[in-house]
């Protein structure tokens, strides 16, 4: 998915065509591209700029402003660890370190096999059952080292025997 092939280009063109008439179309366009391709390829910027009658710098400026938008491929599973206060009160600093050590990743990095990416997040709205992490559209509460190991087992494609 790293190359901007014909198919990816077509996806981007279709999305732009579909959304360009919306008032304030840029965020919806960027979301659709990222949801379809997993990230926003730099080559998409010129296409968006020309369709929305904006400069490439403006489009780049918007993409870079928002933490959610990625300009390079992310892992198959994006693990978001909540760093906000309610989770801190329940030991998220230790959890964060444990997750980093387990995956051998820092924030905004991918594992070599492209299975996992690690991202910080500031509140998932699960603050009464902290600490929380999110993978895809699912939030996991009262997270700890043991539960994290089980989650990783579930996410990896191969079957791991649990005792």
């Amino acid at each position: 998915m790293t190359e901007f092939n014909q198919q990816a280009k077509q996806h981007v063109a279709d999305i732009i065509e579909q959304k360009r008439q919306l008032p304030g179309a840029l965020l919806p366009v960027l979301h659709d591209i990222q949801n379809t391709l997993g990230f926003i390829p730099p080559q998409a910027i010129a296409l968006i700029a020309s369709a929305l009658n904006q400069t490439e710098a403006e489009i780049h400026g918007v993409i870079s402003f928002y933490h959610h938008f990625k300009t390079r491929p992310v892992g198959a599973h994006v693990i978001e660890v909540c760093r906000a206060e309610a989770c801190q009160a329940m030991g998220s600093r230790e959890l964060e370190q444990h997750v980093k050590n387990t995956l051998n990743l820092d924030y905004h990095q991918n594992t070599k096999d492209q299975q996992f990416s690690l991202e910080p997040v500031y509140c998932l709205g699960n603050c009464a059952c902290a600490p929380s992490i999110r993978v895809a559209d699912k939030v996991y509460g009262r997270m700890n080292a043991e539960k994290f190991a089980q989650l990783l087992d579930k996410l990896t494609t191969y079957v791991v025997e649990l005792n």
Partner: protein
Amino acid sequence: MAAIKLYIPDDTTAVAMGADDVCQAISNVAKQKDIEIEVVRNGSRGLFYLEPLVEVATSQGRVAYGPVTVDDIESLFAADFIHAGKHPLAHGLTEEIPFLKNQQRLTFARVGITEPLSLSDYQQHDGFKGLQKALTHCSQELVDIVKESGLRGRGGAAFPAGIKWQTVLDARGSEKYIVCNADEGDSGTFSDRMIMEADPYVLIEGMVIAGLAVGAEQGYIYLRSEYPKAAEKLTAAITLAEQAGFLGNNIGGSNNSFTLELRIGAGAYICGEETALLESLEGKRGMVRAKPPLPAIEGLFGQPTIVNNVITLATIPIILAKGGQYYQDFGMGRSRGTLPMQLAGNIKQGGLVELAFGCTLEQLVFEFGQGTYSAKPAKAIQVGGPLGAYLPKQQWQTPLDYESFTAISAVLGHGGVVVFDETADMAAQARFAMEFCKVESCGKCTPCRIGSTRGIEVIDKITNGQDSDANLQLLADLCDTMVVGSLCAMGGMTPFPVQSIMQYFGEELLPKDSLAKEVL
């Protein structure tokens, strides 16, 4: 025999605690045992310490079991829980659980009770009564009812909603907009999320009424990307409401139109600030605008715009249905009505507590919340999100009221209450306040953009024992500069948690070994 009705919430927290698995397991066992059950995926009652909370419908009302795990299912069936049998996880009638019974639920009246996307359920529980009433009033009368209610913006700024609405009603524009701020980014808050997941039609109803009140025919909900389940529910609810004639043309058979669109944010805390939110909706970087002009006069696409938080708009229907006076009879001082507080962090009984203004922080945390989850003494309570002060024990008697909190240099904000026990490292919390500002500042104002980075550095110097006195003075000056020199609350309030730690937990900023030295 009719199927037995069970309620298992489809709420982010309930699911985060295993509600989907519990639901699947119960269905499987019921099938094996040939017991006919009907499972309703309701919203959460907000008793998050009991999630996943399974409720069984009985002739006396719903009976609660929780927190249920997959491992409990067998014993629950053995105890005949589907006929309200006794079990260690049983709590009796849900409505009689003190955490719920002692609340005053107005905005959250239906939350956890109804099936979120069922229009008939919504209507059977007083849904659209506010809209029906609204259709019999002219715009000015609607604005007057909101003014009479005393409702103030529940996003955090507490600006009187009726006055904002009046400004938009009086403003001239080729088009007017209703924008719902659903960018609930404060840590320790989830009341907006709960409304959107559990009772999405109440928000839609409130927005339609706002449209009628000021002559707006287009609305946007700006929802944060961290809330995928809320997005799913709102998307479905908007479509169903359109099909049933509650959105679109000829609303409720009238000549009024209102179109509603859901827009998703992209992980920027600053977009919870209303002008940054408008910029983002327009497809730009979420940079804060200077005010004036107020969004009520020149808002979205330069047109008069109401920007209200989810809870504010979701409270409009009950105000219309029961009257402004009914709502204004709740509360204290200039804080009228109820505030949905959210108990979070290190808390034994976390969840949603909707109460009239006036109860003390201590009652909330120790009567409803039952103290800390860790069972260690509580040390600090941060109220009002990441820009709110850390309050020490001597301030826990403060009543929950906007003015009382202002008087102690604190904020109620969006009603988030995050409890920390004695192990909390207050120096780390002060540092984090600055770090969060560094990550989330839009960059427009220098004190916020650069001050946050300098703040981290100065705090590090203090905690390392480097020229502590001078650096504490520098930090105090920096905080002052940020407070008075920033356009919005991000830079202007980031110092609040820091200043509160300097004032009440100051000794924790100094390194432990150096403390002894400095005393000598």
